């Protein structure tokens, strides 16, 4: 469609304004991490070296003095997110494959078929996490899983599985079936077909699942706060905890926040098309 100059101007105005809205908080975070406490408290300063003297002091404090603490929390986040992602990938792709290629009929259990099972699985993703606060507190302390990586992995996987099953089922349904049929005719078992033929063809779906699971687990707050108290504390809880100690140290929090956010934002930007693909699985086709 041809655009008039006015439409073009309007278009670019919206794009520029919204890009500014998206980017300015990141800019403010980055510059605040370079300000001295005085430069922060004396009202807004915009440009390093122009209206304030930048300092690398807070980054030095974060990366030298607080190095061990930062690395430990980073490691906790990484282990919890990776562990849960792997578990969701395995269980999700298996479940999704089952639902895409077999007909289930639970005659003795509510008379459910594939459609009902799929709906039940995805509905688990939308249950309020608050529903599990009390039982998980009791269950996890009974099993000595409080403040452990395994505890976090188990809790996160519960929320990652539904989405993983959903995306993978959608992916497998759209995968041409011929290769699987010929593999079966050649005498491969269903499991061998799945592992050697179907999975290698499903990388895009698996990448979508991996991003969503990883980002969800990396960013999760409620269960991390509830199920950890020292050893396994993840980055979001560490950041939120900066609230209470010795007033708010914006400069230090900014450096810490930027350090915690950067890896996930970079992953997201690099794999942007897989995110769109994962979001639209199911939703667009209704």
């Amino acid at each position: 469609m041809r655009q008039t100059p006015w439409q073009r101007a309007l278009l670019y105005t919206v794009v520029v304004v919204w890009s500014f809205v998206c980017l300015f908080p990141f800019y403010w975070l980055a510059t605040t991490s370079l300000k001295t406490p005085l430069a922060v408290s004396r009202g807004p300063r915009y440009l390093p070296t122009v209206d304030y003297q930048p300092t690398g002091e807070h980054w030095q404090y974060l990366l030298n003095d607080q190095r061990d603490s930062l690395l430990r929390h980073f490691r906790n986040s990484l282990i919890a997110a990776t562990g849960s992602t792997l578990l969701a990938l395995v269980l999700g792709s298996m479940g999704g494959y089952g639902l895409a290629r077999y007909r289930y009929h639970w005659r003795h259990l509510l008379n459910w078929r594939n459609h009902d099972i799929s709906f039940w699985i995805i509905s688990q993703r939308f249950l309020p996490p608050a529903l599990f606060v009390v039982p998980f507190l009791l269950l996890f302390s009974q099993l000595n899983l409080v403040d452990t990586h395994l505890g976090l992995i188990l809790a996160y996987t519960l929320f990652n599985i539904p989405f993983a099953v959903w995306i993978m089922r959608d992916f497998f349904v759209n995968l041409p079936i011929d290769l699987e049929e010929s593999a079966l005719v050649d005498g491969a078992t269903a499991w061998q077909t799945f592992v050697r033929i179907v999975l290698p063809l499903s990388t895009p779906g698996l990448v979508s699942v991996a991003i969503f699971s990883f980002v969800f687990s990396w960013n999760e707050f409620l269960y991390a706060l509830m199920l950890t108290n020292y050893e396994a504390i993840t980055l979001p809880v560490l950041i939120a905890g900066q609230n209470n100690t010795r007033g708010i140290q914006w400069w230090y929090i900014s450096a810490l926040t930027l350090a915690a956010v950067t890896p996930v934002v970079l992953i997201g930007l690099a794999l942007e098309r897989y995110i769109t693909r994962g979001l639209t699985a199911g939703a667009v086709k209704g």
Partner: protein
Amino acid sequence: MAGPQSTVPEAAGTDRAHERSFKRIFLLPAVFYLLLLSVFPTVWSLGISFTDSQRGARTTSEESAGFLGTGVQLTARNYVRMLSDQRLHTAALNTIVFVVGGVLLQYGLGFLLALVLHQQFVGRNLARVIFLMPMMVTPVAAAYMGRMLFDTRISPQAHLQRLLSSLTGTEISIPWLSEGTWATAAIILIDSWQWIPFMTLLLLAGMQGIPEEIYEAARTDGATAFQILRQITFPILLPLSITAILIRGLEIFKIIDVIVVTTGGGPGSATESLTMYLFDTALTFGNYSYAAAISFALLLLVILFATLFLTLGRRIAGQNSQ
């Protein structure tokens, strides 16, 4: 939703018992996982909500055998208490305000930005990546960014408000985060900053799926851009919009992290959400049974919202297609 269901192994005619075992092997691990960590805890929690169990409290097994000899007395006390708990009512109302406000803002702006990204222009791919960025940020981090930018002393708002004050001649100072209504607005804005990209991406994908011929036909008939939007794009995207709004709404019902970081539920309990109140009840006060009861009230609210919204959505969609 239901794609073409094909049954490879049956078609290939392999050994039946074998094939049935594979059928189970694929699906059952995921199903068992959800049964163990979702269904079982839910049922257990429902039981707890009918007791008066507290952290550190001794069970009353010496007094009586209790329900089914488990030593637990069943009581509906928690549910009765909810009826007169003012703080709970405030939290429920706040949560609903967060959901409705957030969904409206995110859908409106998300739709507009999707329309923009659907146009052809130089730098479109870059714009799409920039628009996506907020969605990747840890909500706790987004909340800190928001708190910093809503602080009227240290953020550019200080200059903005001074400018506005001198222009209008009256003192303009917005008490973001320190006054109930403004704090609610601030939290909705932070959540929206982060999640507008979700709406944009989803609606953009929907727009890209509309065949170009429909637009061309409308244009030859002399339809204006606004008419096309109102009578073609919007109705076609309605089912997708309903799904997107439902997903976002259900997500906002869970809100806690943004509030913890920005206002801590205050001033007073003006921005406290249900999840936050529940968390406080369970962890600070150790009142497990009441917290469990609240979680079922929240679940009920969520189900009510979903049902109401879907019914309403279907009705609007039905009218549109007539």
